[in-house]
């Protein structure tokens, strides 16, 4: 009998036949997601309000420049999630740059593009502050929030471009078109 016991013990792995359902980790992940700290919520609330304010201001003064530079906050960690966000943002940017828009409607888009600018700048300064203060965890959270906010803004830009172009199609407007400088 000891031989039989040894045989089972030496082949333990063959008795782990049940496979793990991927949903178990998904459930765990949902429960361990860190909740944003109060001060972070305030920072992002202020950021959102500022974006709206700058948007309204830009609309009021009818700023005409349409130049948006990629501020490129650095990638904190090359995690699969971060890489996926980077790729998504890059694809959206490419889509925006490759879609022609009538010059006369670019002012409408500028409001949103200014918000993207502002978000990039705000994130860059927040990132610098957190880096100097060695708040690695907070940097990761801020980075995620930044990705989400930027992704939403780029979606809005794409939505507006589509709306403008659809309207043009409907009314057969043949105006001069060019792509956005992004």
């Amino acid at each position: 009998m000891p031989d039989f016991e040894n045989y089972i013990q030496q082949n333990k792995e063959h008795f782990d036949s049940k496979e793990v359902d991927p949903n178990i980790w998904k459930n765990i992940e949902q429960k361990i997601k860190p909740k944003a700290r109060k001060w972070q919520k305030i920072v992002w609330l202020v950021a959102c309000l500022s974006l709206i304010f700058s948007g309204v201001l830009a609309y009021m003064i009818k700023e005409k420049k349409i130049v948006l530079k990629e501020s490129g906050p650095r990638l904190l960690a090359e995690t699969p999630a971060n890489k996926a966000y980077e790729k998504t943002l890059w694809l959206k940017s490419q889509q925006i740059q490759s879609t022609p828009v009538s010059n006369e409607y670019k002012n409408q888009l500028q409001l949103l593009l200014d918000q993207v600018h502002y978000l990039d700048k705000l994130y860059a300064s927040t990132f610098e502050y957190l880096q100097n203060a060695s708040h690695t965890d907070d940097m990761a959270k801020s980075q995620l929030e930044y990705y989400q906010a930027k992704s939403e803004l780029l979606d809005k830009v794409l939505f507006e471009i589509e709306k403008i172009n659809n309207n043009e199609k409907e009314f057969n407007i043949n105006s001069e078109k060019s792509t956005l400088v992004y």
Partner: protein
Amino acid sequence: MEKTSTFLNNYQHIAEAVSRVRKNDQMAMRFLYTSFAKSMLNLSFRITNDLTLSEDIIQEAFLKSFKEIGHLKDPSKYGTWLKRIVANQSISYVRKTMKFEVIDEELVVKIEDVHWYKKLDFAQIEEAILSLPNGCRQVLTLYLLDGFKHKEIASMLNTSESNAKSQYSYAKKLLRTKLKSHKYA
């Protein structure tokens, strides 16, 4: 594949992951989960014989371990600590239905071939183990497959060490009887 396996089994990495989990690092949590989920699920299943219940149990056990990881003195012992959490939670679910059978002292199994078990599939042996009655099955699997000592098993099952040993011996005989029966032979 080999690299991953070496990595997962490396205690230094487990210890490192534990210290990162203490700082609420989700990637480290994922690493620990990936390293131990399968063995914990199977440990629990052998106790409960109910896969859905065992899935719930390991989910709760991992959450509990992440929450209470500060209590773990030696980070490299995370696996042993987690195993105890899973075993205890699994036992708590089946305790009500678990009873130790009266041991049949007359149960004698004739040995004809010393290596008789090598003719069997592992799946057949596993099936026979899972068909053992509640009580002696848990004792057998906790000792033979999950590496607990009789003293620890006795403590987890609220019984004496001598009863744990007797139940283990009885489970082995029953297992052998089942495996030698026409169903598996």
